[in-house]
């Protein structure tokens, strides 16, 4: 069955440079590796942020990858669930806060 998303494709991510612009791909991966190293934030915090963002951008590859990575960085189910709820809250909040714009507009044009 053909689908746009295929779990096997995640393994090919590292070879994206084969498409072209290999130098840019390599720079991206070097940068990517640096980003996730322990710094002011721990590796676990970064992994959970990545998981939350993955849910916000709804990337199935990143969700799979960072669900596993979070566990391998010592997170448990509650931490993972809370990270996802942060994403949900921000997405929901971002919609709702636009309600202010609607509210303003409605006020502008109503008596």
């Amino acid at each position, binding site marked *: 069955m053909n689908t746009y998303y295929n779990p096997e494709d995640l393994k090919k991510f590292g070879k994206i440079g084969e498409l072209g612009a290999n130098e840019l791909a390599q720079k991206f991966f070097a940068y990517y590796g640096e980003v996730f190293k322990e710094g002011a934030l721990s590796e676990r915090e970064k992994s959970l942020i990545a998981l939350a963002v993955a849910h916000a951008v709804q990337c199935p590859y990143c969700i799979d990858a960072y669900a596993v990575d979070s*566990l*391998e960085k010592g997170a448990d189910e*509650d931490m993972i669930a809370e990270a996802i709820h942060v994403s949900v809250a921000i997405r929901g909040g971002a919609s709702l806060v636009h309600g202010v714009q609607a509210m303003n507009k409605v006020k502008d044009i109503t008596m």
Partner: protein
Amino acid sequence: MKTTKSLKARGEQLSDTMVQLRVLNGKEIMEEQFPLFADKLKNIQLFPLQPTGIDIFQVNVGKMCNQVCAHCHVDAGPDRKEIMTKASLERCLEILSKTDIKTVDITGGAPEMNPHFRWFVEECSKLGKKIIDRCNLTIILANPKYHDLPEFFAKHQVEVVSSLPYYSEKRTDSQRGEGVFEKSIKALQMLNAVGYGQEGTGLTLNLVYNPSGAFLPPGQSSLEADFKRQLKRKYEIEFNSLFAITNLPISRFLDYLIQSGNYEVYMEKLVNAFNPVAAQNVMCRNTISVSWDGYLYDCDFNQMLELKVASPKVQHIDDFDIEALNKRSIVLNQHCYGCTAGAGSSCGGETV
């Protein structure tokens, strides 16, 4: 998946070690073949793998256990009756008295269920050996006759090494059985009460983390800090070190991997995480493992796969010969990838 019986008692084909080895080599149940572990060692000039000596004498005193953990590499449980006899334990003591092997590492099953356990510890103590007991914690509460184990351990300065897969109930119980977390916490508090894990007492309490599923363990030091903080905050528990251990794809964990559809992905993960430095430091290089019936193995995993040491004339405690054993080549197979992934894994945790 709740396990209440060993693979053996359930009559599962995987309880046959030949079947396990065939699975690992893509010849039965699973078709996927992975690069040979031995070839990986050849690439780094580490083949044949040889011991550096024998520092640790690990005795598996029996497969009987009060728990039936889902990942158990021993396939232990209450239904397993294999127990080391006093005669074999005596033979082990004789070996220990005649060699300068410093550490006796007692494991099982629940080693304390061997009726000669206390006597054996006392005798090892008289020999001045460092004694490690791999205690599953819940045994301490399983029966009044075990309630004084903490005092007994303290008396003989036994280093206690205990599994606690996580500082939460859900994770612990999903791997080790319902109610195990609560009992483990109680047992840890009892050990603390007699001085274990407390500064200045010299009584060492180490915990073992291993993943409750098909993933690799986190870095040991950051996890240790988490465990220390959380166990202290929630339960006033203290301990010395945390060992992060990788689950090897054998026995009940192999069964779990196959049943849950995670086998290929997990093996691939182990193979991709092969670390040459960890390979240098695998525990079989300084350990000898003895089974309940007195046979010798390179490690507890090889023991559970029935891969005896490759020194044909010395395969049993009755023929123990340290010189000959030091010249042996270690028996390797695909499960060995579990010891060399990432930061490495041994009975003492990370190896890198």
